[in-house]
């Protein structure tokens, strides 16, 4: 144990003398600072705009005046996607998912206004979030810190000197790994403090569940990622004959992991499981609503069937004699049929998305960057499943509110009297305001089992490999 600490101490001293390491560390710290700062500012701006807009729309809904409930169902309302507080750490897909949706009777509107559309093509180079710095730039710092860890000793012959004093290669390796890990943690301390400070200072609406656990788990996963890259860099350095080769190998790995593989995989996924165009997708929904899911029960037939059933059930011979307004009931039945059709089509679409992204999950077994990226987005609730969950809850809200309107029409208005009937504030108030909460952390974790397995096995494998190689390697050859 003592040798570890001795080696670690020496490594830290040397690293502090390296101008390059110092410069890079400060650059990373500055970038982390910028990312937190701009992250907080735009989080607050967006949160404010969204809350304001949401309040306005609520007010508009309540103050729409007296009207027929079905007209109100068409007047509808809007829902804006709230930001989760962790989105200031990891923007995830927020730039590429729609932000607002219009809710009305009969139609499921799509989410509109993806923030990336307000940009020119530079947005595709990425945005600086703390997550980006930690996921992509941090490994580079690690590589620069550790690529020469063994090759330099080899080039100078010091490795043999150490060895002759009875220090095993394994303990040298672990001493170095410990040193680098400590250095990296020290660099990150101001950033971690900043985050903790922010979490006290920022007043956040409770859209995100299990916040503490999420933050804790994010911290652990990022630590594991950093540790993994340290071990990988040291391992490559042990296996390389000269520093230049170690550096090149590591840089190649980095580019493959962070740039080339993620892009190719997403592109492959799209090619393997093609998406329909919006036009065709919507035509499909429209057609199935028109002709029935089986293509044989058109709308008119469905209504006639409902009418017949109800007449039979209530033992009357015309819809006017029913104890409720048949128009309201048939409206709701049509709505529910439309929902059923929509669920089928939307389900198919989500299925394609999932298949495309599952490919990425499998590949993450070979690519720790992708594993971390997916976990980080998931925990920050800025991933696709969070966005889908939001859309589902919004759609559910739409269904409840439309049902309320239709039921009121069925219960309280008379057949054929559309303009004579109206409701007011009491009715509007009975529709609760939409409140969003992200899914629980457990349901998120369940989606990323593969990614966790990936990080875990990478670490175990690298540790085993390191121990194996350091025992096997004979210095007089190296």
């Amino acid at each position: 144990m003592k040798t570890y600490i001795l080696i670690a101490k020496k490594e830290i001293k040397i690293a502090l003398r390296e101008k390059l390491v110092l410069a890079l560390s400060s650059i990373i710290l500055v970038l982390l600072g910028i990312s937190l700062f701009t992250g907080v500012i735009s989080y607050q701006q967006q949160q404010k705009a969204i809350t304001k807009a949401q309040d306005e729309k609520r007010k508009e809904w309540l103050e729409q005046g007296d009207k027929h409930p079905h007209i109100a169902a068409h007047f509808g309302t809007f829902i804006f996607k709230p930001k989760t507080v962790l989105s200031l750490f990891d923007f995830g897909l927020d730039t590429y998912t729609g932000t607002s949706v219009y809710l009305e009777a009969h139609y499921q509107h799509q989410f509109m206004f993806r923030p990336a559309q307000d940009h020119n093509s530079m947005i595709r180079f990425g945005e600086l979030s703390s997550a980006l710095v930690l996921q992509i730039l941090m490994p580079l710092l690690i590589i620069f810190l550790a690529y020469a860890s063994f090759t330099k000793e080899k080039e100078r012959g010091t490795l043999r000197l150490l060895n002759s004093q009875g220090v095993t290669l394994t303990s040298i390796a672990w001493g170095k790994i410990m040193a680098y890990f400590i250095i990296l943690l020290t660099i990150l301390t101001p950033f971690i403090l900043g985050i903790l400070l922010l979490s006290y200072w920022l007043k956040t609406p409770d859209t995100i569940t299990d916040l503490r656990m999420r933050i804790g788990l994010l911290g652990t996963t990022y630590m594991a990622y950093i540790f993994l890259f340290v071990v990988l860099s040291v391992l490559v350095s042990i296996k390389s004959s000269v520093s230049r080769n170690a550096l090149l190998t590591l840089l190649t790995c980095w580019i493959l992991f962070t740039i080339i593989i993620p892009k190719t995989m997403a592109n492959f996924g799209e090619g393997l499981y093609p998406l329909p165009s919006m036009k065709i997708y919507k035509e499909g929904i429209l057609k199935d609503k028109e002709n029935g899911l089986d293509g044989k029960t058109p709308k008119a037939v469905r209504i006639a069937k409902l009418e017949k059933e109800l007449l039979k059930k209530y033992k009357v011979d015309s819809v006017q004699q029913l104890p409720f307004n048949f128009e309201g009931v048939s409206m709701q039945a049509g709505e529910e049929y439309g929902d059923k059709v929509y669920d089928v089509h939307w389900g198919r679409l989500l299925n394609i998305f999932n298949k495309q992204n599952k490919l990425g999950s499998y590949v993450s077994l070979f690519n720790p960057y992708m594993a971390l990226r997916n976990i980080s987005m998931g925990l920050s609730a800025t991933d696709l499943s969070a966005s889908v969950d939001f859309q589902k809850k919004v759609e559910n809200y739409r269904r409840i509110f439309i049902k309320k309107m239709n039921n009121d029409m069925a219960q309280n208005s008379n057949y054929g009297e559309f303009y004579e009937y109206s409701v007011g504030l009491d009715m509007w108030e009975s529709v609760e305001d939409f409140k969003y909460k992200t899914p629980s952390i457990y349901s998120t974790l369940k989606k990323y089992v593969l990614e966790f397995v990936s990080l875990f096995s990478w670490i175990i494998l690298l540790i085993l490999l390191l121990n194996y190689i350091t025992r096997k390697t004979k210095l007089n050859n190296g």
Partner: protein
Amino acid sequence: MDKITKTIIRYEWRSFVRNKFQLLLLAIIFLFGMYAIYYGASVVNVQKKTISDVQKIEEDEFYQYQISFNEELNSVDAKRKRDIASNPSYAWFRHGYHAVLPPHNYAALAIGQRDLHPYYHRLTGMSLYYQLFENEIANPVKLYVGNFDLSFVIIYLFPLLIIAFTFGLYSIEKESGVLALLRIQSISIRKIVVTRLLFYFMLITGLALLISLIGLLVLSNIFSNENFLAAVAWLAGVILYSAFWFSLMFLIISFFKSSAFNAICAAGCWLLFLLVIPAVLNVWMISKYPIDTTHLAELTRRTGLENENDEKEQTEVLSEFLEHNPKYKASDSLFNNNRYAKVYAAFTALKDSHSKKDVDAYNSQIGKRNKWVNQFLWINPAVNMQDAFTLISKTDLNTFLNYQSALTKFHKDITSFYYDRLFWDKSITQEDYSKRPVFKMKESNERWSMVLFSFLKIALILVPIGLVGFMKMKKITN
């Protein structure tokens, strides 16, 4: 070419051919290039297919309208069909016109923003903005990681290739002891370095040009009028961009540091240009010029009159409409006929002119932030190159803004076509169908000057960097 230069090149060629690793790298990049072309073409083909589907739908729709004029009006269905075809009260919001932004022949090489913005619209006389903002279906994960197209290969991967080939040009000679031998020759080190750099410049740029040429030839005939300039500009851009990275490497080499230093320095520059600067600028821009789309959401709501039967409200709407459209004033007396349809049309038109303010404000916000960010971009050749490539292949933001204003114009044509008939109480005749509005989009006349400007900005940074390197090297070697 003098004898020494020839000798250097001959030896360089020999050592290049013998180096299996370098050959492998070139082969891999070539394959990446081929895949990128294939991938880009497949994305664009899907879009082309969608466009032709959409156009077919429109043709069918209008064909149905036209044949309804020849049918006997002996059934309810036939009458209804004829009504939709000939009665402007229904036709103006039922007839769907398709506006498409067909991909440029070379869009496959730089997909740019084409996967993000909708490239076709079905327009009826209904409120324009209600129809304008709908998105195309896309997997957000895919949008986030971006496209593996040729522009990516050239902008991201070729610089890495250049770095890998040249970072050790001088230092490896020094590290392996060859330099000392060279020094005793009469030839200056600068000449050797420049010649060798030029050799690799020819080689790598040649490869980039070859891949580009394959792409240009496979996708379309480069000698056709619309393609020729684009093809030439693309190739010129490739040369310029490659020259920039070579001049940068020249500067780095001129510091005469170790090969590891060169590699780190070059990788740092690559990171700076392709990741850090754009990422920082993007978030800075977002927090400096936040764009709030929440109030645009309202535009997508379909609204009607408060009370459709209120004559006073109807009159108010009509008179406000007449103020905006004085040409219909002469038909004032005719407002008694078919009044409700006219009020509805007038209401919709008014809604658009009220919304125009919001949309214009939104567009000017985008313009403002782009203008702000553009002043920083002269420093970044990678972003300039991306801009130039997307401009050349017409997949840039400007093309889409241009398309949007063409849509606005087209929508105006559509509404006047129907309103002229609606307000003058005329029905649509079969002959009218040949006069119906057609979507036209004017070529942006700024396109080539913008491309040229991007090139100029790259050249502006390339030349001084190369010169500084040249001077530095002179100082030291002489």
